[in-house]
């Protein structure tokens, strides 16, 4: 069998592809290990996206020149870096690229030296390097690879030495970092590094694949992966029983029927209990018969889980919607928006806000709904700044946005329509807001005084914005419907915000219903701060 003794740009690109594939495959495992520095369960996802970005750039380079491919990968990693671990990985790519500059291909010894530069670059990028992390694992890997490369010309034995050393170093991380030991896990970033290298080694022709690191089950059994749903025993309940009158064994058998993941640990006149249950108070009640219950802590794991769900399956298309309030955010998410950005009226989101939101969506095509005429322009900038394809649907109001979401939600899951395919306008006859005028104004013959309640119909079908006056909110709403020529059947939707309550919206609904009995009127919480009501009138 042919031995691989050189690594050129193409092979390096293959290496990155394989490593990325493995990170993709095991990212949830890595997510579950993640307790340091922030236990937010996203290390695997962050590393994957970072190396994926490196991979995309490396493949685009399409040259056998290693220096060029490595440089492209480094640039890709930097652009795509997400999270702490992502930044560290991107620095490694940068260091490696520097190590192979001017080289079209390298042998094992040069490859290993470049790895040394990679480790060095990562270390330098951190203000305070911590041992027991990806740094320690990568350093051990480099040392072993370098040692092997002195006598070995083939990549296979060198990479084996590298993976073995990385594996050993990974196992040592709990001894180096207390927080890992406490959580009974190895370092997530280090594990990610190892998985990446495991992928690399599989790209080499020759011996049967050699496995060390996978499948690595997360040791931390009390957590859950993003795939696991929290359905039963939703409350993670912890407490200490001081001066217990029962043994740990008794306590364990007493509580075991009340939930799962039960841990009863004793010591020094106290018993520590950890249990996942649906009835935390009942559990504490049972325990309190055997001593004083202290430090009762109850966490709803559903909430935690929802925070942890960063790693959804990639899907063909995603949606980002700018919304003027919490109520609209909720409605938009129900209608399929993956990410919402608060904005509109007086608080336009920046291009960066939109970019961040788009990058959160795990889909190659992202539909961006600006939902405000002043956000459309910013939305159009986003496409150039991300590797996702951004399709801006130029929705000028949040009412248009809701209609666009309805249009999108009714298309097949794998359809990626153009903005023209999305029916926004057809059903909307008119939309507008009712708000307190911020100043005296006159428009189209309607004069309003500062702080007077006034309606504004959005420009639509070639008409300009128009003001609508009225004595109170219900009469303004009715006047808006009248001026739009609607009311014969159809649907009026009133979203309340500002300081308004549901009963205010219902009052309007009642008055509209009296004026136009054939019209359906629905009221929802929009939560928009800038106006009392947003109104949509549809046929």
């Amino acid at each position: 069998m042919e031995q691989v003794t050189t690594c050129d740009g193409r092979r390096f690109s293959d290496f990155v592809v394989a490593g990325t594939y493995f990170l993709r495959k095991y990212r949830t495992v890595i997510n579950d290990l993640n307790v340091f520095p922030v236990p937010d369960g996203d290390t695997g996802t962050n590393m994957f996206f970072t190396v994926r970005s490196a991979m995309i750039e490396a493949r685009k380079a399409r040259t056998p020149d290693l220096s060029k491919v490595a440089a492209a990968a480094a640039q890709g990693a930097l652009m795509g870096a997400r999270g702490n671990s992502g930044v560290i990985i991107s620095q490694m790519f940068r260091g490696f690229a520097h190590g192979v500059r001017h080289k079209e291909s390298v042998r094992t010894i040069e490859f290993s030296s470049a790895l040394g530069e990679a480790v060095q670059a990562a270390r330098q990028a951190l203000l305070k390097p911590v041992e027991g992390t990806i740094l320690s694992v990568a350093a051990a890997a480099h040392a072993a690879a370098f040692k092997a490369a002195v006598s070995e010309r083939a990549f296979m034995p060198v990479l084996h030495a590298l993976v073995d050393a990385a594996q050993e170093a990974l196992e040592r991380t709990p001894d180096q970092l207390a927080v890992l030991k406490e959580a009974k896990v190895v370092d997530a970033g280090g594990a990610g590094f190892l998985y990446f290298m495991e992928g690399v080694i599989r790209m080499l022709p020759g011996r049967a694949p050699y496995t060390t690191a996978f499948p690595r089950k997360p040791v931390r059994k009390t957590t859950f992966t993003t795939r696991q749903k929290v359905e039963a025993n939703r409350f993670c309940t912890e407490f200490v029983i001081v001066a217990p009158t029962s043994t740990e064994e008794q306590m364990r058998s007493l509580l075991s029927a009340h939930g799962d993941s039960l841990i009863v640990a004793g010591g020094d006149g106290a018993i520590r209990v950890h249990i996942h249950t649906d009835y935390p108070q009942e559990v504490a009640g049972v325990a309190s018969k055997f001593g004083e219950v202290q430090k009762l802590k109850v966490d709803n794991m559903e909430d935690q889980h929802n925070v942890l769900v960063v790693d959804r399956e990639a899907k063909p298309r995603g949606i980002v919607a700018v919304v003027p309030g919490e109520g609209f955010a909720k409605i938009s998410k129900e209608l399929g928006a993956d990410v919402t950005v608060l904005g509109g009226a007086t608080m336009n989101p920046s291009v960066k806000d939109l970019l961040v939101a788009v990058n959160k969506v795990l889909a190659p095509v992202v539909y961006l709904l600006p939902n405000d005429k002043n956000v459309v322009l910013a939305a159009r900038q986003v496409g150039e700044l991300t590797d996702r394809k951004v399709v801006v649907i130029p929705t000028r109001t949040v009412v248009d946005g809701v209609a666009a979401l309805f249009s999108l939600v009714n298309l097949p899951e794998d359809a990626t329509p153009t903005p023209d395919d999305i029916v926004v306008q057809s059903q909307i006859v008119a939309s507008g807001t009712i708000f307190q005028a911020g100043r005296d104004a006159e428009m189209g013959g309607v004069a309003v005084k500062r702080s007077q309640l006034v309606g504004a119909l959005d420009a639509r079908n070639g008409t300009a914005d128009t003001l609508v006056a009225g004595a109170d909110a219900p009469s303004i709403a009715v006047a808006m419907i009248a001026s739009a020529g609607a009311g014969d059947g159809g649907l009026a939707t009133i979203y309340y915000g500002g300081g308004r309550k549901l009963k205010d919206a219902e009052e309007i609904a009642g008055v509209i219903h009296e004026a136009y009995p054939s019209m359906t009127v629905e009221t929802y919480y929009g939560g928009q701060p800038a106006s009392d009501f947003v109104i949509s009138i549809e046929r």
Partner: protein
Amino acid sequence: MSRVAIVTDSTSDLGPLAAPSGVEVVPLTIRFGNEEFRDGVDLTEADFYRKLNQSTTTPITAQPTPALFAQTYRRLLDGGAERIVSVHLPATLSGTINAAAIAANEIGGGKVEIVDSRTATAGLGMLALDAARRASAGEDAETIAAALRADVPKVQLYAAIPSLTYLARGGRIGHLSGLLGNVLKIVPILTLVDGTLKEHAKVRTFQRAVDQIVEIATSRLAGTHGARVAIIHSMSPDLANSVSDRLVSIADLGSIYICSLGPTVGTHAGPGAVGAIFIV
């Protein structure tokens, strides 16, 4: 009596159409708490929906027993039928077809041909009516069964239900559960695909859902000849009539009738639902 007898179950919602067409209907059982009724025999539709509204518990529909099927088959065979074609709603929705199959096996001799309609209510009803027509025209059991099986994939059902309450209560919502607990009121247009209820579209109001069903029917029926259509409804005859009026003129239809949803489907749809079923 023709030599081939046609049997279906009460989920076909044939009602008074069954007897004159020569279709034998085996009733399912509806249980409200401790009260038990035979579908279409002991319980009128108006009574059923009134009970459904008042009752806090979901009525339970139970498939006919294999014994009841066997009894029916024997009676028909003793009465002069040589063969039986028995067409039923799919196993994905009920155990009825299994009970029929067990009975057919018990009778033995290949006398009973079981056909899975992959649909329910008027879809099943239209298949049974067609089978009866073929039987009286003298077609043999194999030919009838083959014709039914060829029609099964052509049956399309679209329906709108004004409230998801009953669907949720009956526990049949499963994969449609995304529709529940929503802030925004959404009316789904439901469709039957391979014997499973699926969401075809989401719209804002019931009226729009009805309009969209008419649009779907129009686009599917336009330019066809001899399509068989049924408008289904639960306690909404006026709405069903208006939908029917809108569909009558769009194509050269083979047949169209209005079908009131019986208890088996009605339990899950609740009152006020409307839909269109067509075989085209």
